[in-house]
């Protein structure tokens, strides 16, 4: 039987992973094209769509780089190919490390580094556990997603006066949980949130004063980068 390391670095695994990633990328393209067309049909101006696209592209850069940082950690344990797939499909580095650790523990290894010295079946077990353990969100969405989205959307548009109020409640509830959850972590978290808020406010003010509406496409990206960078300063204050 081949070793853990040989399978983790095998070209066959890389080819399978590339096929999986190509499938997901293809799916994204289909969704992107269909919804872009739909947005235009619904009367959303092309300029607005372009602004949303520019904002999305700039906003995505920094969080994606943080995923790459996770890739460095994960690839040392499960190889580049499987780490690449896991972080591109469903996974987040924290879950992946927990899943890999639980699989190695169930196989009787004290440390993940010890498991890396074993045979291919250990690696196969880790791959299976990581996949099965995270699959349920997608399975549930597969069966319940349409009913859930359609029911809530219908309620939002049919209930007359309460519909628009109801629509806003989901976002307010989400923020209502996220803000205290971040704030309770300490002064640096609060300061970073306030810094981001201030940057967003100042950029909006700048756009209004100068008429430089193109800046709006980069507001979230600037806010994110300055907010994150400010943590280095706030850590010295608190």
């Amino acid at each position, binding site marked *: 039987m081949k070793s853990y390391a040989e399978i983790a670095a095998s070209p066959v695994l890389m080819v399978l992973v590339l096929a999986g990633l190509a499938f*997901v990328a293809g799916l994204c393209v289909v969704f992107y094209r269909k919804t872009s067309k739909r947005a235009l049909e619904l009367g*959303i101006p092309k300029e607005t769509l372009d602004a949303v696209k520019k*904002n999305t592209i700039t906003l995505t850069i920094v969080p994606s780089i943080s995923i790459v940082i996770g890739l460095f950690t994960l690839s040392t344990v499960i190889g580049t190919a499987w780490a690449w797939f896991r972080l591109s499909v469903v996974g987040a580095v924290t879950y992946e490390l927990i899943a890999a650790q*639980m699989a190695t523990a169930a196989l009787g290894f004290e440390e993940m580094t010890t498991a890396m010295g074993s045979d291919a079946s250990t690696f*196969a077990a880790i791959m299976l556990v990581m996949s099965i353990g995270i699959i349920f969100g997608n399975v549930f969405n597969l069966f319940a997603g349409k009913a859930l989205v359609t029911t809530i959307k219908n309620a939002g548009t049919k209930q007359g006066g309460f519909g628009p109020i109801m629509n806003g*409640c989901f976002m307010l509830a989400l923020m209502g949980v996220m803000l205290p959850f971040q704030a309770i972590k300490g002064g640096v978290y609060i300061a970073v949130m306030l810094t981001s808020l201030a940057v967003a406010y100042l950029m909006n003010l700048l756009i209004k004063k100068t008429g430089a509406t193109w800046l709006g496409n980069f507001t979230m990206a600037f806010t994110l980068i300055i907010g994150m960078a400010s943590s280095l300063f706030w850590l010295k204050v608190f």
Partner: protein
Amino acid sequence: MQDEKKYNDSIHLIGRIGTIGAIGFMVGIPIAICVIYNCFPSMSTVMGAAGTLLAMFIPSAISEVISYAPILGSASYITFITGNVMNLKLPVAISAQSIAGVTSNTPESDAISTMAIALSSLETLAIIAVGVLLLTPLKPFLSTPAITTATGYMVPALFGGLLLGVYTQSGKKRIKNKWILALFPIVVMGIGILIWPKLTSYQGYCILGMIVLTLAVAYALYKAGIVKEYTVGEEEGK
């Protein structure tokens, strides 16, 4: 209406096919490796470890789908397939809706959010691919203490930047006394955390519970005539 139903049916069909395909790759790749290299692990060991993970993640997976689907709409398929919901996909959706000036749960927000998340997912796939190619040269830079520290504060920076868009109102249609609905979940959650700090371990459940509570309060206030939609310049003063 017929057109809307036809579009909804097709987008959900694509989402379901995509989800089945993604699940197929997630489970299929490990199984293919086991078959090709004849390295099947003990199934009892795999199911033991996977079962523990499932027990941990099934409740939160269900609550995540129920909580986020109303905000994401049909984008929930691509979101749950590509993961990184809280640190990337939700902020992208919220920001896109804010820039386009659309409300959650409307056909417009559904199209805009799905387009933005599909684009964001494609970009993330590309950035991770670049990260894999540049794994060795990038590692020293992205592993510096400043970068890793700042990355730890990404979520507060993101949500701080989204505050303005979520809590301020623009456009002709607005919600009277929206501030009550905005403040309610923050106050309840804040008190909840102060009484029982362990609540922070149950973020998914808290969001789900807070959605139900906020909707209930919104409905009561709507019935009492305290919260209602109005058009700027028409009923504002009433």
